[in-house]
């Protein structure tokens, strides 16, 4: 079953200074339970693509299907993770976790129970009455993921979701979030400019070209490591090979 199908997406931005083609004829699909990463040079429209898949933006042409349903606006199937955790300082962790449910008007006993279980499973339950500034960066990112997961999305869109963290925390959170996504058996699309991060986490990598963003190549990632965690996979012998290949494709000139 295809969780996401992107068909011939093009996006043009209009401004008084002219027209910018951000994306051109993008097409790919993502299987249920698959972890796909999108990499590309900055400004190639990666984030625009995620916004289109989530229904926040409508494309100039082309269509997106989520499990066979055409996207016309935001949908409950999608969970969106932004660059920063954006936990609200004026809400406790519990209130922050409930935000999505409040907005969807879906605060039910079951949903609350689900939130409780998620908080317990991922070690945040005793912090539920704390405020975000009392938590570490990694804990905050986990709280943000739980805020997304309680709305029970089938597809997670991670928009540079780790780039605001410092390097060590980032490696730890990579492992953390990856195991949560796999355990909860969700489909994920990760947008990043970090090649290592995308190789270590993804089953497949879609490389986009410079603006206008087009699909340049799709890599099937097969790493020979015993315990599939992002950190372990960085040790795999194939890692460097993928890195070199994608680096060349990104065609970075300084």
């Amino acid at each position, binding site marked *: 079953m295809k969780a996401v199908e992107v068909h011939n997406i093009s996006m043009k931005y209009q401004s008084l200074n002219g027209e910018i083609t951000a994306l051109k004829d993008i097409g790919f699909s993502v299987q249920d339970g698959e972890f796909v990463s999108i990499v590309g040079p900055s400004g190639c429209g990666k984030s625009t693509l995620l916004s289109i898949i989530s229904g926040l933006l409508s494309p100039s042409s082309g269509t997106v299907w989520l499990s066979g349903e055409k996207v016309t606006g935001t949908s409950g199937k999608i969970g969106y993770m932004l660059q920063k955790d954006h936990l609200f*300082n004026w809400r406790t962790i519990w209130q922050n976790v409930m935000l999505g449910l409040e907005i969807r008007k879906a605060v039910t006993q079951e949903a609350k129970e689900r939130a409780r279980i998620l908080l317990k499973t991922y070690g945040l339950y005793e912090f539920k009455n704390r405020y975000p500034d009392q938590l570490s960066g990694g804990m905050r990112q986990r709280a943000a993921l739980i805020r997304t997961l309680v709305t029970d999305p089938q597809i997670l869109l991670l928009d540079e979701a780790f780039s605001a963290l410092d390097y060590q925390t980032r490696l730890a959170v990579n492992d953390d979030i990856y195991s949560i996504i796999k355990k909860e058996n969700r489909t994920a699309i990760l947008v990043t400019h970090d090649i290592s991060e995308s190789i270590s986490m993804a089953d497949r990598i879609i490389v986009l070209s410079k603006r206008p963003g087009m699909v340049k190549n799709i890599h099937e990632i097969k790493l020979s490591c015993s315990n599939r965690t992002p950190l372990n996979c960085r040790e795999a012998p194939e890692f460097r090979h993928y890195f070199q290949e994608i680096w060349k494709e990104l065609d970075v000139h300084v």
Partner: protein
Amino acid sequence: MFEDEEENIPAISQALNISLERQEYLRRERFGKISVRMTQILLLVLALVLWEIMADAKIIDPFITSQPSRIVKTIVQLYKEGVLFYHIGITCLETIVGFTLGTLLGTFLAVILWWSKFISKVAEPYLVILNSLPKIALGPVFLVWIGAGPASIIVMTLAISLIVTILEVLNGFWGIDQEKIKLVQTFGGNKFQVLTKVVLPASFPTIINALKINVGLSWVGVIVGEFLVSKAGLGYLIIYGGQVFKLDLVMTSVIILGVAAAIMYQGVVYLERLLVKNNDLKY
């Protein structure tokens, strides 16, 4: 175990887990604080004494500058006439109504301007002009239009504080991290939910800040209003005292005004601490 007294002091501080250096540091901090406060009080006392003596010695003319003893006398006299708290009360009430209304109405109008890009673009040049216009100039118009009473005075304070509030709060709204708004939208939130879940709570410190500015502006509005309406309040006492050459009354009113304004400002600062506990300004 039982050594002499001197040896016991470090033992105690060790038990309390406070090093000697820290004790020394705390003592110096405390001393610093006390000396600042003492100097402040000393300066005030010195100024009052100097004022009194110079007026007695006729170096300055107490008819014009008044003097502390005359001010105390005037306060007692006003109290005996039973009008002291009447005038203070009226002025304070007008001020409180003024800055509360100014903040609420200003925030409401800022919400409208935030909601509609079109309205905010249309309103922009008018806001700029109104902001630079000295609103006090409109005082006589309000007086004739609304009548000589508290209503005119409150409209005067609104005229002074409203535009500033709108601009301040609107700036706060526009300064909110777009990604926070996007977060609400990814959950399918509509514009009203963006307003209630992010924009208003995130702007709460800005609104409280506007409230603080409005306290100051409202005093100006109320005093000018009372000058014009000339019926009651500290502004009335000042204008009346000036007209009948009772400058003691003018000085007394000014002093009371200063104290009342300081108390009110502290009240708002206290309110801020109470309300903005977990809503710090780092966004």
